[in-house]
C-alpha cells in the first residue's frame, strides 16, 4: 500500500509500499513513533480511508475500488474499530453506544443479544445505563471494545487502545484483545509503547513509511 497526504508542494508520503498480512486468531502490534504513519495504516485497513496504490483484502473481500456504500457495508459487518479516545457518543448511555452499530441498516441480526452478552462479559453491566462522562476511562474503553465487537467482525483494529488508561486498565484491555483472537478474530493494534506491543503475537515496527 502507498499513501500520501497533502497536495502540491505540501504533499508527502506517509506509507511507501507497506505489506501486511494478518491471520485469523492473530494479535499484531504495529509499533512506531508519533507521525510514523501507523494510524494511517490502521485507517486504510479499516476502510476509513483509501490508499493511493495497492490492494487491501479483509476476510476475503477486496476493499480497493469499491464504492463508499459498499465499503460502509464491509465496515458494518466485517470490521470493528476501537478508537484511541474511545469516541463514545455523549448523548447515549454505555449500553446504547454498544447498540449503535446493531441499529444501522444492514446490520447482522441478533445485535441486541450480542450487545448484552458482551456487556456482561466485559463486566460493565452495572454501569451500562450511565452516560460516558459518568464512566471511568477503563469502563469507557470496555464499552468501546464491546461496540467494536457487537456485529461479530473478522478484523478488529485498535488505535492506541491503552493510550488514555492507567496500567491496570491497560492490562485489562490487552487481555480483552487477546480474548478476541482466541475467538478467531484477527486483531491489529497500533501503539507507541514497546511494553504494550510486547503482548502481541507479532510486532511490526513502522519507520520511514515502511513496516519493518
Amino acid at each position: 500500500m502507498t499513501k500520501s497526504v497533502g497536495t502540491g508542494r505540501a504533499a508527502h508520503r506517509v506509507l511507501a509500499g507497506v505489506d501486511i498480512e494478518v491471520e485469523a486468531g492473530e494479535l499484531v502490534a504495529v509499533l512506531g513513533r508519533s507521525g510514523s504513519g501507523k494510524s494511517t495504516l490502521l485507517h486504510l485497513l479499516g476502510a476509513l480511508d483509501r490508499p493511493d496504490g495497492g490492494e487491501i483484502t479483509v476476510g476475503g473481500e477486496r476493499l480497493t475500488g469499491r464504492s463508499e456504500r459498499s465499503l460502509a457495508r464491509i465496515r458494518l459487518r466485517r470490521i470493528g474499530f476501537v478508537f484511541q479516545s474511545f469516541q463514545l457518543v455523549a448523548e447515549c448511555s454505555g449500553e446504547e453506544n454498544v447498540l449503535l452499530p446493531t441499529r444501522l441498516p444492514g446490520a447482522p441480526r441478533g445485535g441486541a443479544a450480542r450487545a448484552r452478552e458482551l456487556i456482561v462479559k466485559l463486566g460493565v453491566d452495572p454501569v451500562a445505563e450511565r452516560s460516558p462522562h459518568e464512566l471511568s476511562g477503563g469502563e469507557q474503553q470496555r464499552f468501546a471494545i464491546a461496540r467494536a465487537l457487537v456485529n461479530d467482525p473478522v478484523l478488529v483494529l485498535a488505535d492506541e487502545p491503552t493510550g488514555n488508561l492507567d496500567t491496570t486498565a491497560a492490562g485489562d484491555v490487552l487481555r480483552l484483545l487477546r480474548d478476541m483472537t482466541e475467538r478467531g478474530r484477527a486483531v491489529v493494534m497500533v501503539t507507541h509503547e514497546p511494553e504494550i506491543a510486547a503482548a502481541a503475537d507479532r510486532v511490526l515496527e513502522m519507520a520511514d513509511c515502511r513496516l519493518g
Partner: protein
Amino acid sequence: MRGVWQEALRGVAQRRGRTLLTAMGIALAAAMLATAVVVAYSLHTGFDRSATRADLPDVIARFDEQPLSRVEPRIRALPGLAAASFRFEVTNISIAGGGHSSRHASVEVIGPGRRGFAILAGRPLGARNGEVLIEQGLARSWGLHPGSTLHMQALGAVRVVGISESPDNVAFPLAAPRVYVSRRSTEARFGHEADPDVNTAELWVKDPGRLDEVLVQARATSYGIRGLRFVTRAGVKILLDEAAGIVIALLVALSAIALLTASVMLASSARAEVQRRLAGIGLRRALGATRTHVTLAQAVEALIVGVPASAAGVLAGTLLARGPTDRLLEVLNEIPPGSALFWPLAACFALTTAIPLLAAAWPVWRSGSRPPIALMTGLELRARRIKEGRSHRLPRRRGTFGLGSRLVTARRVRLLSTLTVLGTSVAFILLMLALASELGELASNPAALGKRYQLTAALPASSAPSVAALAGVAAAAPRYEVQALDSYSLGETIDVIGYPGDHTVFEAPSLASGRRLHGPHETEVGLGLAEVLGLRVGSTLAAELPSGREARFRVAGIVNSLQHDGRVAYVSAAGLLADEPAAAEQIAIRLRPNADRAAVTAGLQALGATPVKTSAAVGTGQTLIDALTAILRVVAIVNGLVCLYALIQALVLTARERRATIGVLRACGAGAGAVRVLLAGAAATVVLPAALAGVLLERLVLGPALARLAAGYASLPLGAGASEIAIVLAGFAIFAAVAVIWVARLSVAETIVGALRG
C-alpha cells in the same frame, strides 16, 4: 489594529463554509426586515407624501353648479384662508385613446390658481388649446403618455401634455378616469364665458389646526348654495390610509417578528461558533493576546461577514418588495417614497449588522473574564457535559433516527430558538395564506359581505311585486341608497341603505353587538363607521344627506360589514325617504336556489330593466386585490426562505458540532443513508413541534388578533383552513427534506478520519 484585521481575515478565509452559512442567515434576516419596512413605510407615509407633493387642498367643497361670481366672494371672505381655486367637474364623459374607451370619465375644467395635483410627467396645461392632463392610473392602464392623443366627447381630439396624480381619490380603474382641461380650452371650443359655472372649490387654509373654524364659517355662509358637501384632507387620508391599514399593521408586526427571529438565529449561530472556538481563544490569550484584542478580532470578523451580507439582504428585500408596493401605491394614487426610504433601510442595515456583531463579540468578551487555561481545558464544555448528563434521562428514542433527535435536544437553548423561529414563521405563513384566501373570497363572493340578493334592476319601487312574482325569484324589494356625510367631522362619507321591510332578507351582515333595527328612527351601522365616529349601541348617528337635510338615527345594532370599509348605515326606507325623498332606488332581487337566471333576466327585461349582477367587496378593485396578494406572497416567500435557512442552520450546526459522532457512526458502517436518517431525526425533532406550535399560534393567537385588528372593517375568519395547513406542512416537509439531503451530503463528503478528529 493591523493584527486584528489580519486575524479576522484569516478567520473568515479558514471557515468559508460557516462564514457562508452565517452570511446567508444575515442576508435572509435583512431581506425579511427590509421587505416589511419597505411595504409598511411606503404605505404608512404614502398619503402625506403624495398630498404634500400634490399640494392637496385642506378642504374640497363640492356643490351644485353655480356661477363663479356667486361662490367666489363667499369663499374669499372665509377667515384664515390662504388660497382657493375653482373647478367645474363633469362626469360620465366619453373618452377614447390608446385602443381603449370609457363612457364614465370625469373631466375637470380648471381655472387659474393653485391646482391640488402633482405633475408626474410632461408639463402643466399651457396657453394652447386642445391640451389635457390625465391621471396616472389612466395613463398606465391605457398606455398613454405625454404626446398621446385622446378623443373626448365634445372636445374632439386633444393632446395629452402631462400625467398628473392626486391622492384625493384612488386611481383608475378603481375610480372613474380623470382628465383635466383648462378653462381656456373649453372657452375656445364653446365660447368665452364672463362668469363661468363651477361646482368644486379647493381651499387651502393658513393654519390647518383651525380648520374646524373655517368649516363652521363656510357652512354658515353657504345659504343659497345647494348640494354643498365638504371633504377634508384628513377625511381623505382616513379613507385611503385605512384601506391599507390591515396590511400596514400586519407588516409592522412582521417587522417585529423578523427582528426577533433574526436576533435569535444570528445570536445562536454566533454563540455556537464562539463556543467552538473557546479553546483557540484561550490559547491566543495564553500566548499574550489581550481580552480587547480577541474581542476586536471577533467583532471585525463579524463585520467582514455582516456588512456585505446585510447590505445584500437589504437590497434583495427592497427589490422584492418595491414592485408590488409601488403598484399598490399607484392604485391608491400615492407616490413611492423614493430616497425617503434610505434612512429606514439604513436602520435595517445597521440592526442586521449590529446583532451578529454583538452576538459574536459579547461571548468572547465575557469569556475574557476567565483564566486562559480554563478556556483551553474546556470550562464551557464541562458545563455542557452536566447538561448532557441530564439529557440521557430523557425518554429514549431508539435507533439512528432517535440518536439524531437526541443530538438536537442536547442543545436546549438552540433548540428553543430554532423552534421559536420556525414556529413563528409557520404561523405567519399560515396567516398570509388565510388572509390571501379571505381577500379572494371577499373579492369574488358577494355572500361573504352578507349580501343575499344576487341581482338588482333599475325599476321603480312600485315594480317590486311584479318582480317578486317572476319564476325563480324568492324575494324582491326596493333598495334605496344615498351617500351621506357625518354631520360632525364632515370627513366621513356614509352609505345609507334603506329597505321597506326586513333588510336581513336581502342584506344580513352579522351583528357584532346590539340588535336589528325596528322602526324609522333606528339604524344598524357598520363596525368601520362605529369605530371612526365612536358610535355605540344607543348612540345617535347624525348624517348630512345629499338634500342638505340632516337625518338622525338611534344606533340599534353594529354589524360586521366590509362594504365601503364598514362605513354603512342600514335604516328603514320610511326613515330615509322622510329626509331624502329623491334617494336612488332600485329593486334588489333574491333568487331561489337553482333558479333559472336566464328566465329571470328575460322576465326583468320584459318589465323594462336589465338586471345587474351583485358585486363583491371590491367590484372593479381587482388591481388592489392583486397588489395586496402580491405583497402577501412576497412576504410569505421571504418567510419560507427564513424557515429553510433556520432548518439548514440547525442541522449544519448539529452536524458540525457532532462531526466526531457522525464519524464514529460511519466508521461503524453507517452509509450516506444512515447519516440522512440521523439528520432526519434531528430535523423531525425541530420540524414537528415547530409546525404544531405554528398552527396553534396562528389559529389561537395571530388569526384572532388580526381579525380584531380588522374589526374596523368586518369580522374576518382568519384562522387557517385545512388546505392552507396542508400546504404549509407539505412545504415544511419539503424544506426539511432539502435541508437533510444537503447537510448529509456535506457530512458524507468529509473523510471519516477528518470527522473523527472533530
